[in-house]
């Protein structure tokens, strides 16, 4: 067996010597598992942004197809929202992909990533329904003022406005389902890695 020990020592040393990594490479290896999840998140984030842009374009087209009187102001509002969402995506994308390996430790980097993703999650869960509610009230007001120019508050108009609440709740639920479908699995993977590191 001593012969085998010598054989092992000689050749295994040769094999592992070729695999030596420096500190930066080891750092990268350490967060690579987390990065796999991040790469997947970035891909779905792009899909998400494209879907948002397509929906905005569709809404603008509808306002022109039905020849809505205030189509320009509504379209401008929709474009502003799209720009706001675009900036939001850009900020998230930049924050998630930039790491300060020199000054930050790995746990800090991963925790920051998680923090940004949770902000993103909250923005998604609450931001979109709030935007929807604002848009719903705005469109109802436009539709109600088409004939007389003013909104007459009665049972019918109150009902139309109040329908915005369950509709917003439904949008919130749909947003949750959509977000979980897009990011759920990847976020769970990342969360479990971060949890392991923070234990």
């Amino acid at each position, binding site marked *: 067996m001593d012969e085998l020990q010598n054989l092992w020592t000689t050749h295994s040393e040769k094999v*592992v010597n070729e695999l*030596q990594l420096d*500190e930066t490479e080891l750092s990268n*290896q*350490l967060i690579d*598992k987390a990065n796999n999840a991040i790469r997947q998140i970035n891909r779905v984030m792009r899909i998400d942004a494209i879907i948002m842009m397509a929906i905005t374009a569709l809404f603008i087209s509808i306002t022109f197809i039905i020849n809505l009187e205030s189509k320009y102001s509504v379209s401008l509002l929709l474009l502003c929202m799209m720009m706001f969402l675009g900036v939001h995506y850009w900020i998230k994308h930049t924050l998630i992909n930039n790491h300060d390996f020199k000054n930050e430790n*790995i*746990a800090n980097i991963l925790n920051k990533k998680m923090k940004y993703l949770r902000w993103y999650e909250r923005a998604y869960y609450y931001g979109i329904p709030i935007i929807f509610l604002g848009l719903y009230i705005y469109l109802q007001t436009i539709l109600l003022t088409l004939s007389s120019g003013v909104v007459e508050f009665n049972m019918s108009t109150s009902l139309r406005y109040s329908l915005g609440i369950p509709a917003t709740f439904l949008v919130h639920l749909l947003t949750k389902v959509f977000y979980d479908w897009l990011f759920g699995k990847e976020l769970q993977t990342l969360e479990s890695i971060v949890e392991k*590191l923070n234990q």
Partner: protein
Amino acid sequence: MKADFLKAITKHQKILHKVCHLYTNTPEDREDLFQEILIQLWKSIHQFRENSKISTWMYKVALHTAITHLNKTKKHTIHKDGVVETIDYHQLPESYGQEDFDLLYMAISQLNKIDKALTLLYLEKHSYQEIASLMGISESNVGVKINRIKSKLKTIMQSKNG
């Protein structure tokens, strides 16, 4: 302690590479296991005490991770003479261009996960006492197991050498 983590790992990384090579046969599996061990080392850094050898701590974490990592990805379990055995249908280990070493490697790859750990520690010239302490079994049991492994390796190598 955490600031010195990467320095320590860099210095003793051969341990991790050796464990990964022994427990995996493909570069993808190897990389996956390597990352898993790094995460486990990072997670358990607070358990490491200055008065203990860092290499021993790394062996313990790396081997434990390799064993549990493979448990998660086991492909098939069979019952043989009342003993449950896990069979991994990994491809054969890659060749390192040295006939004797390739043969040894191939023979080790056919051992079970615990025997692989014992073999590695033995081949790395750890004493029976160190192996016992690291693996959590008695020194005499280490001796018995090592002798059994020796004959197993001998049989496999002889049969392959033809």
